[in-house]
């Protein structure tokens, strides 16, 4: 009864060790297109939201907009999108259209990095704007099938979006009608100010990576301030905390599992998100503590899918339900519905 599943994607070799090598032969390599995986899963599921990742730096907003709209049709209202930027030279070389300097994006004080990051997020914000306008470019009810006048559509309800920005221009309208949710949800992972601002201005869901409840509180405050500055104070923007979780019946057993996996990997697991080991009840305690910091949900990353996803659904979920902190049945057939978001009117509707 989880709200949604996100599907990672990348247009590069995974686990990059630098510009030259994609990763050692002992690491898993290979990744299918996330939108296609989500589409393949849609007819096999009935309630869960499907949120694939799109790398906006190298893809076309027109293509992604219709792809997510179509995912919304094939899932009857359960589609979302996670946008991701990429400043890696190795990925840029797969497209050959632009070159990025070899820098560590973590070196945020470096002015070259600052400029690169600012540009990537400005482009991402434009991308989301185009994707959203295209979803609205067919008003609801544009398809009239009026046999008497011979008209299939009411062209007054189809709109050029006429977007022109620094990175691309898109005319519109979409070739795909307005999707069932009107606006499928847009989400992004945010680690720093530029990403917080993008979430505040453009997203429905932001994923943050706090180390504790205080950290969560300050990330939430920064995004809320950004929302106010963008005139979106009244709109719901969910802020989800990301956590890597290793679960077991006892805290010691969970820690042992993680230690054994670290030993097999030859190094300790590092992550942008906090790593939790413990029992489902301990995890529930932590989630409720962080929730008090202003988070409205959590994106749990199973340490090992085969074990920890089961532990989340069979251990954590019943624990949270006992505490009255999690749904006992799906209350909506759409992802917007599960997130408490109303279906918006098209921005182009005049009536």
């Amino acid at each position, binding site marked *: 009864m989880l709200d949604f599943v996100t599907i990672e994607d990348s*247009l*590069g*070799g*995974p686990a990059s060790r630098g510009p030259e090598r*994609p990763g*050692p*032969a*002992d690491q898993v*390599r*290979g*990744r*299918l*297109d996330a*939108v*296609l*995986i989500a*589409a*393949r899963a*849609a*007819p*096999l599921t009935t309630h869960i939201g499907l949120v694939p990742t799109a790398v906006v730096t*190298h*893809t*076309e*907003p*027109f*293509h992604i907009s*219709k*792809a997510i709209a*179509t*995912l919304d*049709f*094939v899932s*009857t209202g359960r589609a979302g999108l996670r946008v991701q930027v990429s400043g890696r030279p*190795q*990925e840029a*070389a*797969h*497209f*050959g259209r632009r070159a990025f300097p070899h820098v560590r994006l973590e070196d945020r004080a470096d002015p070259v990095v600052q400029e690169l990051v600012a540009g990537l997020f400005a482009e991402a914000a434009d991308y989301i704007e185009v994707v959203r306008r295209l979803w609205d470019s*067919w008003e609801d009810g544009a*398809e009239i*099938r009026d046999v008497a006048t*011979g*008209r*299939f*559509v009411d*062209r007054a309800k*189809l709109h050029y979006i006429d977007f022109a920005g620094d*990175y*691309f*221009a*898109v*005319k*519109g*309208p979409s*070739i*795909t*009608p307005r999707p069932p949710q009107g606006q499928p949800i847009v989400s992004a992972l945010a680690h720093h100010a530029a990403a917080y601002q993008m979430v505040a201005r453009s997203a429905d869901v932001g994923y943050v990576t706090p180390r504790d409840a205080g950290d969560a509180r300050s990330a939430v405050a920064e995004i809320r301030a950004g929302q106010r500055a963008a005139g979106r104070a009244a709109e719901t923007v969910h802020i989800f905390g990301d956590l890597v979780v290793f679960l077991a019946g006892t805290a010691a057993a969970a820690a042992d599992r993680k230690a054994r996996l670290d030993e*097999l990997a030859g190094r300790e697991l590092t992550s942008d998100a906090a790593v939790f080991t413990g029992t489902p009840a301990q995890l529930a305690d932590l989630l409720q503590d962080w929730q008090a910091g202003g988070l409205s949900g959590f994106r749990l990353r199973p340490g090992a899918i085969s074990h920890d996803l089961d532990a989340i659904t069979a251990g954590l979920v019943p624990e949270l339900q006992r505490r009255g902190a999690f749904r006992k049945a799906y209350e909506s057939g759409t992802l917007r519905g599960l997130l408490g978001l109303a279906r918006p009117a098209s921005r182009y509707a005049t009536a």
Partner: protein
Amino acid sequence: MTKPAKQIHLAAHFPGVNNTTVWSDRRSGSQIDFSSFVHLAKTAERAKFDFLFLAEGLRLREQNGQIYDLDVVGRPDTFTVLAALAAVTDRLGLAGTINSTFNEPYEVARQFASLDHLSGGRAAWNVVTSWDAFTGENFRRGGFLPQEARYERARAFLQTATELFDSWRGGEIVADKQAGVFLADDDAGRFAHADAYFDIQGWFNVPRSPQGRPVIFQAGDSDEGREFAAASADAIFSRHATLEAGQAFYADVKGRLARHGRTRDQLLILPAATFVLGDTEAQARENAHEIRRQQVSGQTAIKLLEQLWNRDLSGYDPDGPLPEIDPDPAENTIARGRASVRMHRDPMATAAQWRARAQAQGLSIRELIIEVTGRQSFIGTPGTVAETINRFVQADASDGFILVPHITPGGLDEFAAEVVPLLQERGVFRTDYEGRTLREHLGLAPLADGSSAARAAS
């Protein structure tokens, strides 16, 4: 000694966004809802068809400066629909039209390799090109190509994508837990390609898919298009549905293969075809005429005439005679986003033929347009349609047909129930799938391993 009968290949084309698709019929359903795609795909799979085919459009069509509203408008995203259909079908091939002008090889190769994995080896790619700035207004590059460069870019695009597909040989993933080895070859996926259009290098991140790469379709009819197909396609989606034109096209294209070091069985010729069934021949003809009248309303007749005349003819009466005025010989600007307009290569000569025919037979504008555009390929009882299809294939006018129903989504139901069993009785169409992959359905030999094929070719 008679040669054994050729096996027929059949495919289903999801009804498109032109006037072939009759939306005003009460049986007509959504062209967007997934249930429509499921219906057609399941019908085709029950009938043991080779594949389902989706066309693509990247800008809504316009005429007289406005969005064209008389035909079906709007379609979903090709890849997303095909991946979802992979979940509800088991054997049916899944063919998608994807433009090589407004995409990049790395992304498209990933999408097709992913679709091939997600469908267990059932993906096909109809490679199309376009050069118009009108469509380009929806894309990053905005750009367009000089007309003569579009096949050049398409060839480079397909070559690049092929190198990406072949960058994984197959079998690299050993995932040996005891030895702690995931990949047998650390270089799997490595590629470098440089030409006038694409200068890219790195690692392709989708391991080799069940078919090695998608089955490649080509749809152009020009000399360049035929040459492109003869060099690199597995099948041609053509439009020559009459016996003589089909035989001429078939002989021409198959004749080009040897020059590219290929054999005649390495390229299938699959024209698009429409059909109308009836309990009797007379009933079928009557049905066909009624469908043509649905397809060509008075308004539609004027619009189709404008596409040749390159003029606003909205003041003319569709039930009256053809205009006295000649077509405007300037560049065609009346209709945009429509490939068929480019088929009018000599508008003056075509207009003269149409006038002569209208005068000789006393036809109004609408009656003439009904006669000169889009006549159905096969009209008759299930028995005669089965016989005609078989005759065309055995006489080398094609290797089969991509059937285009005029009703969404039930337009194939009757054909599947009535005609397919007759072809099966004749022993010229499968009664069950023999293979799992689309290559197997099409009788194409398996591909060699990736990297070895790439090395041999270079």
